[in-house]
């Protein structure tokens, strides 16, 4: 029982670490490879007519 509990706990810990690293890597890929932040910047600096119900 205790062994199972520890195993489950370690898996939970690993999941958190993997997601954290994956998120940081994804941000890096998005910025440095795809320049995705420019897409975001371009979209967000023009009035989004769809968002306000005019599109």
């Amino acid at each position, binding site marked *: 029982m205790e062994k199972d509990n520890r195993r489950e706990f370690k898996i939970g810990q690993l999941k958190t670490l993997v997601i954290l690293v994956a998120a940081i890597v*994804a941000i890096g890929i998005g910025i440095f490879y795809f320049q995705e932040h420019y897409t975001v910047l371009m979209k967000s600096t023009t009035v*989004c007519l769809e968002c306000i119900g005019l599109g």
Partner: protein
Amino acid sequence: MANIKSKFKRHDRNRNLFQFIFTLITNSYIVGFFKGRIYQGNSKFVCVPGLNCYSCPGAVGSCPIGSMQAVLGNRVDKVPFYVGGMVALYGIVGGRYTCGWLCPFGWLQDLLYKIKLPKGFRKFRKLKGEQYLEKLRYLILVVFVIILPLFLVDFTGLGSPYFCSWICPSGTLSGLFLMAANKPLRDIVGLLFAWKNFLLALTIIGSIIVYRPFCRYVCPLGAIYGLFNKVAIYHFEIDPTKCDNCQACQNVCKLSIKVFETPNSTACIRCKDCIAACPSGAIVEKFNLKLKEPAPLKI
């Protein structure tokens, strides 16, 4: 008892103040409200954690859900690495902490819920079919935020932000601020605007009667963050040596979560009302990778 009541009141006031300050920070382009225009500076490439429309005149950051649809509806790079990564980062660090403390639209609903109803009317903790309604936000996330912008494209290959266009009341509210000081925008209102205002009115009235209906049943961002609650670095733990199953946490929770059983439920917005109300201090906030070994189970 009086001590807990005053502690609870203080906690509520502090949370409101925190939400107000964060809303002010992320919407600090005050000039925009008077001139009827939006901020166009470089800080807008950063996605803010909460649902904060980038068409709000004050917004100095980008809405993650709007940005995600913009990338998915793009002609070429259709995988939202950057936006997805940002959302995952916010989620893995705080889970739904954003919903309870950092989201301006969540704060608005909190304020609306404080409005007292006239005699003869009552507020509801749960709606009929709550378990099905809770799933609606996942459906909205998959259909309106991912599938439609990705596949329903125009002749140039561009997809629209369908969640923003057809559903999001946060955008409608931002639009009202923008239109108030911008006559050319007022001149092009149509049927879609009427539909979105109907949804906004429904959300406002609903928020007075039910606690945070938009967050519970509609918000795709809350749906994503909720999935992180169980694995987030910031989480709740129950100290079994202190908890005496008095259920004070569940009674005070406006979302009726059995905190003593599921402290990291996907529905929990981390408002921390339960912590303030717990008479024995059994609910503990943790900010770690759970590096400590768990205590052996008592058999």
